């Protein structure tokens, strides 16, 4: 359960992560290389295993390879020589594609980033309060918040849209930032509370004796110690909001404010491109923020999702 037991709750979870492996991997890689060529160790079973995995890997990568190849061709090459590799490579496609979508990528980064920052801030604060403070009505409030895990987004989609209309926020960044900030908090609060609950009471007692105020002990002790869980929350929220499609589709109508997930689907109509190449290049460019994020945050992402359970 999330209420990670033991000292370092956040370090315990799923040893799925690259890190758990990498230590062994580096040590073992020399051995691995030699054993790779050691035919006697290679049983028939292992060869079948490799074959199946490689085939599956190849099929998995077909769309990605197809995407990359198309992104480097022009229409003439695609229609004329479908099966040949790009020749010459049309790098200009990436320039054209980026012209069409750079703005929506920035919109995505802005809205995802802002709402994630706000989520982390609010959830860490309230997580801390729910974990360490005692006040009347605490359990009722906490249960009330957890109950929101039961509410699927499809139920709130239309009423939330009407709410945004009534507030006059449709077609503004706020229409994305506010609901995302709010929605992300449930899961974030869950993680933060259980993590703060594991921090030893002695730290806070010591701080109190040294004359630290409540806020000081939050900022100086709780936050630094809980950095891993806050990063986890941030990564999960960034990926989730970046991938959001239906909500921006509903509340944002102006192409200038649209996020990249929706903008990609309106690619052709928007700049009048009928060339597939720049379009495909745009798809690849839209992945760049996620590539950057996953290159350091993959293990946080997996931990967050498994811990978040329902509300992925």
């Amino acid at each position: 359960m999330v209420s990670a037991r033991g000292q370092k709750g956040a370090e315990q979870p799923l040893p799925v992560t690259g890190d758990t492996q990498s230590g062994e991997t580096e040590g073992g890689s020399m051995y691995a290389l030699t054993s790779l060529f050691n035919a006697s160790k290679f049983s028939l079973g292992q060869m079948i295993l490799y074959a199946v995995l490689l085939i599956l890997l190849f099929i998995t990568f077909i769309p990605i390879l197809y995407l990359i190849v198309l992104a480097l061709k022009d229409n003439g090459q695609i229609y004329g020589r479908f099966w040949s590799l790009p020749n010459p490579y049309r790098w200009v496609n990436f320039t054209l594609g980026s012209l069409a979508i750079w703005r929506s990528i920035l919109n995505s980064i802005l809205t995802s980033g802002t709402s994630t920052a706000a989520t982390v801030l609010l959830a860490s604060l309230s997580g801390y309060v729910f974990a360490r403070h005692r006040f009347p009505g605490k359990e009722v409030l906490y249960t009330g918040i957890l109950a929101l895990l039961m509410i699927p987004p499809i139920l709130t989609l239309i009423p939330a849209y009407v709410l945004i209309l009534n507030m006059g926020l449709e077609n503004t960044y706020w229409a994305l930032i506010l609901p995302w900030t709010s929605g992300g908090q449930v899961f974030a609060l869950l993680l933060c509370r259980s993590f703060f609950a594991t921090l030893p009471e002695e730290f806070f007692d010591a701080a109190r004796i040294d004359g630290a105020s409540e806020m000081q002990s939050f900022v100086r002790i709780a936050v630094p110690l809980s950095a891993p869980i806050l990063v986890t929350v941030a990564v999960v929220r960034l990926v989730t909001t970046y991938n959001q499609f239906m909500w921006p589709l509903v509340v944002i109508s102006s192409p200038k404010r649209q996020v990249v997930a929706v903008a990609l689907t309106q690619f052709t109509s928007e700049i009048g491109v009928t060339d597939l190449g720049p379009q495909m290049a745009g798809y690849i460019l839209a992945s760049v923020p996620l590539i950057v994020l996953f290159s350091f945050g993959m293990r946080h992402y997996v931990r967050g999702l498994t811990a978040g359970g329902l509300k992925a």
Partner: protein
Amino acid sequence: MSCWRSASSAIRLRPAICSIALAVALLLGLALPLAAQSPDGQLWGQDTANRIQALALTADGGRVVIGSRDNTLRVLDSSGELIWQFEAENSISGVDISPDGQWLAVASEDRFVYLLDGEGNMLWQFKATRPMNNAAVASDGSLVAATSDDLTVYVLDGEGNLVWQEVLGIGVQAVDIYGSGDKARVVVGSSDGLITIYSRTGSALLQAGLDYSVQSVSVTPNGARILAGTEDGSATLLNGANGNEIWRFEAEDTIVGVALAADGSTALVGSEDGSAYLLAGDGTLTHRFRQDDDVLSVALAGDGSRLAIGTIAGAARYYDRSAAVSGAAQSTAQRQRLIFVLVGVFALLILLATWAARNTASGQVIYQRSAAGPIGLLQSMWRARLSYLLILPTLLLLLTFNYYPAFSGLYHAFTKWSPGVSTEWVGLENFRFLMGDRFFLSGFRNAGILVVVSIIKTMTFPLLVAELIFNVRNRFSQYWFRTLFVIPIVLPAVVEILVWNNIYDPAIGLLNESLKLFGLEHLTRVWYGDASVSLGAIIFIGVPWVNAFALLIFYGGLISISNEIIDASLVDGASTWRRFWTIDLPLLMGQIKLLLILNFINAVQTFELVFLTTGGGPGAATYTPALELYYLAMRMDRMGVASAIGMILFLIILAGTIINMRYVRSSTEYEA
């Protein structure tokens, strides 16, 4: 299923009861007052077999004139009682009544225009060469204007003498008069989009041009404002002094009738889209009166207090404006009601707490501990004010953007909901509608298929690949396989679907090209356009379905199985196959349970996958409930029905979650 466990352990009895009470109170508070409301402020309605082609009201709405296709003109009082009626030789095409009700001008397809007095006596009649289509009378009855299908405007004085006539040579059917005596002015709108103001003697004083054929005009008694309805579905308010446009309102279809209150502060616009729109003086919509059929005629009392709407199916309805508007102001009232409800809930909670402190054992303990009872509680609440302050932003956001929409959705599932205009309680009507909606039913079936397929997809290939990688003996290869299989996660979900759209492209897609390459041209087809394969094509997206997330979960589960168990099985000589079934699978039940519920929840709500590929087509072949919800809400403005779909999906997900929690056993609960 971490959070579930924590949730269920956190939900101890008492807080749970409080939360439920809170929810119920909130729901009732929203639902009850609204349910009592009568729709639209309608005072009475009459259904006849003949279309209502003309309507007029006096200044106070005390007389209602209804011109019908059955040649009769009926004058009713404000309660709908017939006062007198008049028969023409052919159907009535237009009427006008002076504000005091003393004069009536009636145009009929029998080619006559009649002037009647307040008791229904005919004063005179005048004949054109073709049927008359509309008529207007000055407030003192001294001037009558009539338009005819012979493309001519006739203007007559109070005795029925022709003052002037103008052959426009183009269709004309919009006419109104303002002023009285010598200052009377005739406003005429014609099919070429021109609106002309004539003096009593027939000289054109002002001309304004609109882009489409003018169907109806209405002018205030002082001539300051002219409202014109045109064929394109827009109603335009013009300044009577200079002909400049003040505002424009767009309906969905041709405007057939317009009416202005005497002070120009209210306007009523009837459209063939089946609605009459009540507009404020600045052109904003205050209420939409939806009718079952095309609206043919509208009328508004001079003081704007009453209005009448006639339809092509023969219904004449009479409304009280303030009741309709108060219905429209419901959304404002609703917000206030929410505040009341919250206050009420708060009071309820205090009552409940008091009750608990008196009547339950644990309550008494708390009661005693908090020393002086309620005062002590308030004291301890005050002492904890910092805590409340810190969680306040979180609570406010959740209440606004999560709690409120959730209850609003559940409530509005039982209403006909036009946000900002009206909310009408319709009981189970929305659900009944859905039971007969083939798109929803098809969507429901597809959602079922997608749920099953999605679960099968997640339980087979990712588990297989995880198990295969786990069994690779070389750590180096193990690492690389795992990393490579996870790489596709960096593509945004939308991009994957869009790339597959290209793969399926009938003209130059990878799939059809590959089939051609292997000489299987007879198998190529328009994958999304063929009802027999379109759903299959959607399901096929992402083959071989090695979902990175599921793979990581399974793989993580496998490597956390302790080496002792596996070694023991090796010592016992168990085959890999045997080990999979007796050790791996039982120990992976926690992971399976997690993926099961996540996939279920996501698959029930499938939207992008069909929206971006087939859009639900061909026909209804690939609809999903979420897609139908989107279309109903965003394209057909049927928010109530859409909310009903939301509610159904919510209940399904809730049921699935509970079943999964209860009946899917796992030896080890999932730890995260």
